[in-house]
């Protein structure tokens, strides 16, 4: 076995390697900074700077005949706030993300709970099964829902075939379709976040609780649930932020009838070519999402079991 791998340096060799580096003139205390430097550069160059450019551009004007006008004004933000078309899209986006988050929590919790109960190998296999949807392309998975929800899809076909449904149900291009499709995509993140917090609970605490007279239900309510709050927080932050900004799934399953914020950005940037307004929409979504997440975090922290977040 070991011959097929390059030999690991012994501690002494490793120390010598470090010494060589130090001899080249790099001060030892700089090492950690040098290690994070590439990632930091990439973050700054590919994320921070573009975001800054986007932010500035959201204050620019636009004229279909002239193109982008490099002025600084808040007209894009005023336009968004004053037009119910945009406001509704924002509310719809938040509503969908909220529903997806809540449903993923409700559906994901029992799964994570069960995963935490089963031992060793079974858990590994089940975890893989839960992750397996992530191995399939997002687009393919979403088109899968089309096959299920479409006018001639599985549900309508079966419904009519069994005589339960008269006319075909309109399932596609509804908020429900978007919620179901998004939920499917992001559920694994919720399950994994919950699982990791459940795994952190000392099993002795369950014994202590039942020893003190808690039946299984009250044990869950008073011990398991509060102690899994960090997982609930992490899971819902991940799922909410991913769903609020998701584009592919709402675009395919909701189309132009269920316009979400990401869809509006796409429309402004690629159909209307009004990049400054697209930038403003993106920023409004970003700021509101961050605000909601912060408030949510605060509320949980200030709550009765805030101590579990420390």
């Amino acid at each position, binding site marked *: 076995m070991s011959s097929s791998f390059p030999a690991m340096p012994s501690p002494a060799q490793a120390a010598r390697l470090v010494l060589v580096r130090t001899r080249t003139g790099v001060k030892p205390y700089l090492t950690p900074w040098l290690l994070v430097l590439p990632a930091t550069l990439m973050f700054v160059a590919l994320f921070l700077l573009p975001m800054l450019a986007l932010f500035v551009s959201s204050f620019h004007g636009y004229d279909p005949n002239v193109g982008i006008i490099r002025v600084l004004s808040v007209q894009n933000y005023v336009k968004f706030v004053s037009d119910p078309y945009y406001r509704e899209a924002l509310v719809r986006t938040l509503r969908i993300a909220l529903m997806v988050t809540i449903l993923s929590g409700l559906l994901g919790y029992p799964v994570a709970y069960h995963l935490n109960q089963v031992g060793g190998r079974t858990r590994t296999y089940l975890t893989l099964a839960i992750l397996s949807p992530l191995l399939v392309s997002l687009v393919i998975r979403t088109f899968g829902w089309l096959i299920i929800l479409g006018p001639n899809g599985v549900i309508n076909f079966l419904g009519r075939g069994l005589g339960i449904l008269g006319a075909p149900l309109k399932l596609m291009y509804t908020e429900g379709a978007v919620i179901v499709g998004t939920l499917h995509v992001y559920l694994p993140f919720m399950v994994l976040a919950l699982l990791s917090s459940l795994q952190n609970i*000392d099993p*002795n*605490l369950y*014994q*202590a*609780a*039942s*020893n*003190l*007279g*808690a*039946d299984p239900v*009250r*044990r869950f309510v*008073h*011990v398991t649930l*509060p*102690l899994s*709050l960090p997982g609930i927080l992490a899971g819902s932050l991940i799922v909410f932020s991913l769903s609020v900004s998701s584009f592919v799934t709402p675009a395919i399953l909701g189309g132009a009838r269920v316009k979400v914020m990401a869809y509006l950005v796409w429309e402004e940037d690629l159909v209307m070519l009004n990049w400054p307004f697209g930038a403003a929409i993106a920023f409004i979504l970003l700021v509101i999402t961050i605000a909601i997440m912060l408030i949510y975090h605060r509320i949980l922290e200030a709550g009765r*079991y805030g*101590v*579990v977040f420390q």
Partner: protein
Amino acid sequence: MADLQLTDIRKIFDTFVALRGVSLEIARGEFVTLLGPSGCGKTTTLNLIAGFIEADGGEIMIGGRPVTGIPSHKRNLGMVFQNYALFPHLTVFDNIAFGLKMRRVERAEIARRVDRALALVRMPGLERRYPKQLSGGQQQRVALARALVIEPAILLLDEPLSNLDAKLREEMRVELREIQREVGITTVFVTHDQEEALVMSDRIAVMNCGMVEQVGTPAEIYERPATNFVAQFVGESNCFRGHVEESREGVVVVKTEEGLIIRARSDRAWRPGDRVQVAIRPEKIQVGESPNRPAAIAAVLERVLYLGASVRCLARFHQRKLIASLPNVGPLARLTVGAEISLGWSEEDVILLPGDA
């Protein structure tokens, strides 16, 4: 009538037999310790009593009633875990109040009883703290208060002192026992620390490999161990193998493999030729300058270990290492390493055990 009675308890994990017939009776208010090496089944026994797992055979009776099939939350037992298992998301007050809330005790009554419990464990004034803001000793007290406040039928303690530092551990031994006496609660205490067991217990059940080897008071266990294992595990022993030469009127004469003749007292009926093991506690051995007594043997002093309160002499006798422990009184100058010394004992201090067949 026994408050807690275990009859021939068996427990098998998959294929591993963890308990092979444990029987034990504990009277009301008694403090009984399960003592044994790691993995001998102490925690398993406690978990069976607490109802966290079900036995594969035998019967457990609490207060005269069999508890088979009764889930743990209906058994009304108090347990203190080795790692305390305090609820990290609850304050000290809420931790202690937990069991009372589960019993739907009313609010004012809860406050009163939590206060009383905190006073009992000598730790008032920290109700608003969270467990991680407490020291190990304080956590231990909270865990004890939490177990006692529900006024359980039986208190179960699983190595509650093993996470404390040596000094605190010794203090808590005494204090835990005082609290237990104050409440008068039947207690099963688990430890693998023999000194702890000797100091604290009314009776000790020495366990080994899923079985109880001997049950008795600390003095009985120490002075009259019933098996080789007990003699080795509780305290130290100088052991000799040999066979019975003659046995008459409670006095047994043993000839060891080295050819040494050792006389012992025993109530058991031994027959000449029986293979036996002879054990003598280090502190029962007297050290003299030269062989001057009939029961004494000549040995070479190899090392002297100074332990403060006592001195341990390691001596060699016929390729066999012997240990004698002396109180640190009088001059130690007479102990010169390499010199010949005499080791003596009186025959009532000799422990006679059945040897391997």
